[in-house]
């Protein structure tokens, strides 16, 4: 799958922007604040229906405009062309058209366009909290199979329902609360046990890929491991929730479950969040993204668009060159404030100045 053309209207700082993207590597050059990251953000929005910068919808609409439009011409692997149009208005009123047909739900677009973004913010995959790493696992699962989007939403909903019930209990475990909790727990476990299995399988598959990507970037063999082993998975969630029930009622929150899981990562046997150098952490974050990208490529039979947003300046020369030497096959968009290092080559160069695009 390739995004051949991207058009932006009133998106961030673009009044209108038109980008011809090519099947190989497109280099987007622009000084900071000129709008090159907004291009990456628009591409990623098509894939996840959210901003990878965690910006609210309002922030994506150019100041003074009622709505923003992202319009993309996508060429599928079988040669079919799809026109995707996303209109961003106030929250809840976004609209999506595919080949001029309005989709019933905006989320039905998931799976139509796959994009992997690596940006400097991805350092939080290593340095951030467990929630940032859960989001990485779950985003990757959704890229592998869109059904996980519903699973994730349902788990969120059950946790909110269960927490509300626990607060209503007011610290007292009456018979009525017990019986009601029993059914919420049964429903929670039915979905969470499957989701935990999906996450564990994902991590098992990612492990060798992260390892390989890290080694390619660092240039030296490095013992590295991802571990996803929540205690509740050994007994099943129903048993774990039963064991935690007294505590949950006392605290008024669900203390056990997939919403509390951690994906731990070690380099040389030491936790990378606290014990790795800044350089190692950046390399690991990039290795995670590249591994996710490779897994999605292998499992879905088509490479997502790989967007490297302003990351070359963050890597040392050695690692930047290693990254460019080992770019996966498929469409790649690289945004940068400076020219590419001499070792690398771009099939196509776009220059962005104040939301205006020109082609070399």
């Amino acid at each position, binding site marked *: 799958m390739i995004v051949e053309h991207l058009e932006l209207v009133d998106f961030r700082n673009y009044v209108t922007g038109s980008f011809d993207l090519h099947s190989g590597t497109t280099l987007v050059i622009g000084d900071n604040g000129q709008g090159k990251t907004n291009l990456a953000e628009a591409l990623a929005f098509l894939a996840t229906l959210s901003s990878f910068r965690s910006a609210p919808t309002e922030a994506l609409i150019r100041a003074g405009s009622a709505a923003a439009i992202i319009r993309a011409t996508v060429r599928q692997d079988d040669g079919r062309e799809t026109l995707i149009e996303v209109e961003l208005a*106030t929250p*809840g*009123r976004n609209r999506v058209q595919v080949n001029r047909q309005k989709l019933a739900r905006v989320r039905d677009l998931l799976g139509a366009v796959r994009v992997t973004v690596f940006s400097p913010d991805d350092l939080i995959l290593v340095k951030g909290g467990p929630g940032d790493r859960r989001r990485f696992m779950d985003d990757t699962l959704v890229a592998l199979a869109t059904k996980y989007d*519903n699973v994730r939403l*349902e788990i969120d*909903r*059950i946790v*909110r*329902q*269960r927490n*509300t*019930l626990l607060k*209503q209990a007011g610290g007292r475990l009456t018979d*009525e609360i017990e*019986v*009601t909790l*029993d*059914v*919420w727990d*049964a*429903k929670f476990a039915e979905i969470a046990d499957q989701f935990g299995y999906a996450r564990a399988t994902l991590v098992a598959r990612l492990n060798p890929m992260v390892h390989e990507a890290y080694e390619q970037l660092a240039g030296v063999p490095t013992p590295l491991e991802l571990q996803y082993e929540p205690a509740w998975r050994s007994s099943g969630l129903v048993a774990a929730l039963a064991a935690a029930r007294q505590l949950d009622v006392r605290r008024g929150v669900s203390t056990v479950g997939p919403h509390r899981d951690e994906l731990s990562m070690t380099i040389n046997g030491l936790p990378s969040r606290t014990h790795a150098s800044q350089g190692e952490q950046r390399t690991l974050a990039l290795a995670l993204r590249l591994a996710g990208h490779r897994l999605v490529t292998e499992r879905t039979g088509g490479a997502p668009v790989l967007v490297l947003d302003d990351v070359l300046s963050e890597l040392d020369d050695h690692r930047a060159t290693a990254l460019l030497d080992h770019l996966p096959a498929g469409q790649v968009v690289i945004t940068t404030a400076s020219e590419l290092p001499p070792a690398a080559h771009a099939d196509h160069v776009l220059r962005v100045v104040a939301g205006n695009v020109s082609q070399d």
Partner: protein
Amino acid sequence: MAGNYTAPVQVLIDELGRLPGIGPKSAQRIAFHLLKVPTEDATRLAFAITDAKARVRFCERCFNVSEGALCPICNDDARDTSKVCVVEESRDIVAIEKTGEFRGRYHVLLGAMSPLEGIGPEQLKIRELIARIEPEGIEEIILCTNPNTEGEVTAMYLARLLKPIGLTVTRIASGLPVGGDLEYADELTLGRALEGRRTVD
């Protein structure tokens, strides 16, 4: 929240905004639409609301909407009294009736378990359902709550409550659009789901 419009308009917007599924934006749109339509159209809507509210109540037996003490289904002697289909809302009865697959009676819970909306088993017409079993000679209870999280949890709760009483408890077959409402399922799909109902273990 302080309104930006002259008082009567703001009251109208606020009232509309309290309706299910109507956000502030929609409430505003509907309010200004109503202000534009001819007076008799607005009056007709207002009358329809007060008239329905005055004349319609809940069936004393099954909590379906009804003009009399009992709804037309409960009043129909040709109905099979040994089977009861449990639904969340009266509108689900309409959907199931359209399939022509069910000739028993109904029981409307008036909602589904949802702590976020302050609804637990106590707030639903569950005690009233239990009270019907003996006098009506109910042998099978079919759980037709919506195929979404809250509907599934409510069905589980009822199954655990009803099984020990010793009657047959069934759940409509899956195959309905997950996460959806019964009322959105087409007649054929809903009919098949009813026919393919399975005993809950």
